[in-house]
C-alpha cells in the first residue's frame, strides 16, 4: 500500500499536551511515524503520497459519543451511509450509533446488520451502542454480553431514561460483568415538559421541565454507580447543578464521565421565544448560567466530551405547532464548527477543544484512548481553524436539515477526514503534492 505523509501540520495531542509542528506518516492503515519539533521531518520516499497541510491542525480523529443514524427503520430521516458521510464531512472519524432504530439494536443480529451497512458505507467508522433493555422498553435487560461480542463497547437507553432505580442498578451491575459502559441521559420523566422551567416557559405558556429533573436523576445515577462500582457515562448534561453533582461524584471516586451537546454550549432557552421548532431539543435549552457552566466544564475537563446529539428528522416533522413538532437537531456537520466557535471566542483553547472532541470521548468509550501513537489506526482529522464558510441546506450531506444554524457563518472546518488510512472526506482546498 502507498505510504502517505501529512507534512507541515500542527499536531494537537491532548494526551501529551503537545501543540506544535509535526509530520505524520501513514502506511497500511496505521500511523507509522510521527515527527514532532526536534525529531527532524519525515523524508518522503519515491511512491509516497505527500500532502502539505500548510499549518492546518492535525489531530487524532474526532469521535462522537451520541448520534442517531436512524437505520434500520427510519431511512427517510437518515441512512447509515448518509449519516457516516455527514460525520466524515464534519471531521468525525467514529460515530457512536445509538440503538433507537427499528428494530431496536438490542440483539447481535441487528448489530451485525448495522456494522455490515457501515462497512459498505465508506464513511466514518460506526461504533454501535447497544440497547440497555430489550426494545428500549426499560423492563428487561438486553444481552450485553452478546452485544459486546458483536462489537458494542457500550449500551444505552437513548432518549428514554431508565425510570426505575432498580433497573438502573441492574443495568450498571450487569454491564460490569462484560466490562461495558452504560451511557445514560439522566432526567426524571415525571417532571417532564417542553421548555426549561423559568420566566420563558411562563411567558410562552409551555409545559415546563425544571433543571431539577436532571439534577435528581443525576444524583440518583451517581449513587447507584457508587453502590455498584459500575461504569457510568452521563450524556447530554445541560445544567450547572447537574455538572456540580458530577464534579462531586468524580471527587468521591465514582467511575463516572459525562458529555454535553454542542448546541447546549451556545443556545439558551430564549431561543424558543418565537416557538421555532428548530430550537426544540431534548433536553431543552437552558439558562445563560447553565450554558456558561457547560463551557467551564469543558475547559476544566469536568466534561469529558462534546457530542453532536445528532437527531435528524424530516423538515415536515418540524413543521408543526411547537408542542407537536419533532425534537432534535441534525448535528454531525456542526459538531466541530460549533466547538471551534468557542475557540475563536476564547472560551476554549485548541487543546481543550480537541480534548473534548477526540481524546476525551476515546477514553470514555475505550476506542483508541491511548492517543495518537505509533501503530495507532490512522484515524485522523485535518482542521483549518480559520476558514470562513456558511452552512447552507443544499450542501448538507445528512438527510436531516433540521438545524437552526443554517445560514450562519462559521470559522473553521475539517479539511480532511481519514479512517484507517483511507480519506473519507476531503474539502476542496487541501493540497496534495507529489
Amino acid at each position, binding site marked *: 500500500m502507498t505510504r502517505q505523509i501529512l507534512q507541515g501540520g500542527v499536531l494537537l495531542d491532548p494526551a501529551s499536551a503537545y501543540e506544535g509542528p509535526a509530520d505524520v506518516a501513514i502506511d497500511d492503515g496505521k500511523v507509522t511515524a510521527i515527527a514532532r519539533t526536534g525529531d527532524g521531518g519525515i523524508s518522503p520516499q519515491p511512491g509516497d503520497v505527500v500532502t502539505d497541510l500548510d499549518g492546518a491542525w492535525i489531530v487524532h480523529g474526532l469521535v462522537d459519543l451520541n448520534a442517531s443514524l436512524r437505520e434500520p427503520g427510519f431511512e427517510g430521516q437518515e441512512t447509515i451511509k448518509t449519516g457516516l458521510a455527514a460525520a466524515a464531512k464534519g471531521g468525525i472519524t467514529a460515530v457512536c450509533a445509538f440503538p433507537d432504530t427499528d428494530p431496536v439494536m438490542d440483539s447481535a443480529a441487528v448489530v451485525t446488520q448495522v456494522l455490515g451497512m457501515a462497512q459498505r458505507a465508506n464513511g466514518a467508522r460506526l461504533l454501535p451502542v447497544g440497547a440497555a433493555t430489550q426494545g428500549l422498553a426499560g423492563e428487561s435487560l438486553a444481552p450485553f454480553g452478546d452485544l459486546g461480542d458483536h462489537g458494542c463497547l457500550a449500551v444505552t437507553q437513548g432518549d428514554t431514561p431508565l425510570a426505575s432505580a432498580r433497573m438502573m442498578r441492574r443495568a450498571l451491575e450487569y454491564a460490569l460483568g462484560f466490562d461495558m459502559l452504560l451511557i445514560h441521559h439522566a432526567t426524571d420523566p415525571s417532571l417532564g415538559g417542553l421548555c426549561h422551567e423559568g*420566566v420563558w416557559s411562563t411567558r410562552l*405558556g409551555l409545559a415546563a421541565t425544571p433543571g431539577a429533573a436532571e439534577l435528581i436523576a443525576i444524583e440518583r445515577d451517581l449513587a447507584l454507580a457508587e453502590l455498584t462500582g459500575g461504569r457510568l457515562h452521563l450524556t447530554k448534561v445541560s445544567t450547572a447543578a447537574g455538572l456540580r453533582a458530577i464534579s462531586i461524584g468524580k471527587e468521591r471516586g465514582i467511575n463516572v464521565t459525562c458529555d454535553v451537546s454542542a448546541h447546549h454550549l451556545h443556545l439558551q432557552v430564549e431561543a424558543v421565544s418565537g416557538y421555532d421548532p428548530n430550537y426544540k431539543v431534548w433536553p431543552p435549552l437552558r439558562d445563560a448560567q447553565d450554558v456558561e457552566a457547560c463551557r467551564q466544564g469543558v475547559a476544566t475537563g469536568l466534561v469529558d466530551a462534546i457530542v453532536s446529539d445528532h437527531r435528524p428528522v424530516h423538515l415536515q416533522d418540524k413543521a*408543526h405547532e411547537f408542542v407537536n413538532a419533532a425534537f432534535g437537531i441534525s448535528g454531525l456537520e456542526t459538531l466541530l464548527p460549533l466547538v471551534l466557535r468557542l475557540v475563536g471566542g476564547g472560551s476554549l483553547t485548541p487543546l481543550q477543544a480537541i480534548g473534548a472532541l477526540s481524546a476525551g470521548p476515546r477514553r470514555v468509550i475505550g476506542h483508541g484512548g491511548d492517543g495518537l501513537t505509533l501503530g495507532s489506526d490512522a484515524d485522523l482529522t485535518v482542521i483549518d481553524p480559520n476558514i470562513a464558510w456558511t452552512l447552507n441546506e443544499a450542501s448538507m450531506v445528512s438527510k436531516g436539515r433540521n438545524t437552526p444554524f443554517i445560514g450562519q457563518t462559521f470559522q473553521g472546518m475539517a479539511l480532511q477526514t481519514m479512517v484507517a488510512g483511507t480519506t473519507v472526506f476531503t474539502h476542496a482546498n487541501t493540497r496534495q503534492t507529489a
Partner: protein
Amino acid sequence: MTTTLPHLLGLDGVSKTTITTILDTADHFKLVGQRRMKKVPALRGVMVCNFFVENSTRTRLSFEVAEKRLSADIINFSASTSSLQKGETLLDTIKNIQAMSPDIVVIRHGAAGVPRLLTQHIDAAVINAGDGWHEHPTQALLDMMTIRNHKGSLEGLKIAIVGDITHSRVARSNIFGMVTMGANVHIAGPPTMVPAQLEQLGVTVHRQAAGALEGADVIMMLRIQKERMGSGLFADDREYFRFYGLTVERLALAQPDAIVMHPGPINRGVEIASEVADGPNNVILDQVSNGVASRMAVLYLVAGGSGIATQA
C-alpha cells in the same frame, strides 16, 4: 388614526399607545352598538376566516357578531367538521385556507404558538383568539375596556387575579396588558398553579388570596377546570373554594366599589360564591357585551394595519 397593527398575536410586548388606541376604538364601537343601526360598512368586501381548531361557543359567537357588524364576509372552519379530523396536518390545512385568500384569519388553537406559525404561512392578518395556555389578547382587551369604563383608567389600580395562572391564557394576556397600562397586578393561587418566576413579568405573587384582594379595585377570578382537580394540582373543589374562592368575606377585603370580573363560564361555589356572582359588584355581563366592541376594534385596526379596508 393610523396605528399599525398587522396582526394581534398577543399583548406581550405591545405598547401602551397601541393598547390605548385599541381601547379607544372599542369605546367608539360600543357607542355604535348602542345605536339602532349597529352595522357599519368598514369591513365590507373583506373576508374573515374564523379558524377555530379548539372549540368555542362564546368567543366564536362574539367574533361573528363583531364581524357581521363590520359588514365582513365570514367563513367558519371548526375542528369537528374539518379535514383535521381526517388526519390532515395543521400546516396542510393552513395552506388550504391560504388558497382561499382570506383577508383576516381569527384563530383559536389548543397549542401555544400557532398564531405565530400562521403568520409564517399565510398572507392574511392574524388575530389570536386563544392559543393553548399562551395568550387570549381580545379577552384581555375586553377586560381592560371594562375596567376603564368603570374606573376611568388602569393606571395605579390594584388588580387581583386569582386562580390557576399556569394554564390560563386569560391571565397571561391580562398580566401583559395591565402591567403595560400601569396597573399594580397582584396574583394569588395555589402554588401548584402559579408558574415559575411570574414576578419577572411585573406582578406581585401571594400565597393566600387575602394578600391579593386587600384594597383591590378590580378582582378577576379565573375558572378552575374540573379536570385539574385530582391531577396533583389541587385537592378538591371544596378546599379550593374555602381558601381561594371569592366569598362575601373575601370580597369585603377589597375596596367597597371594587368590580368583580370573570372570563366565564363561572363555576358557582368553586371560584366564586353565588351571592357574589349575583351581587352588585359583578360586571361579568358588561365583559360579554364589551367583547363585541373590542373585537370590532381589533378587526377594524388589523384591517387598517394591513391595508385592507379603512372606511369607518
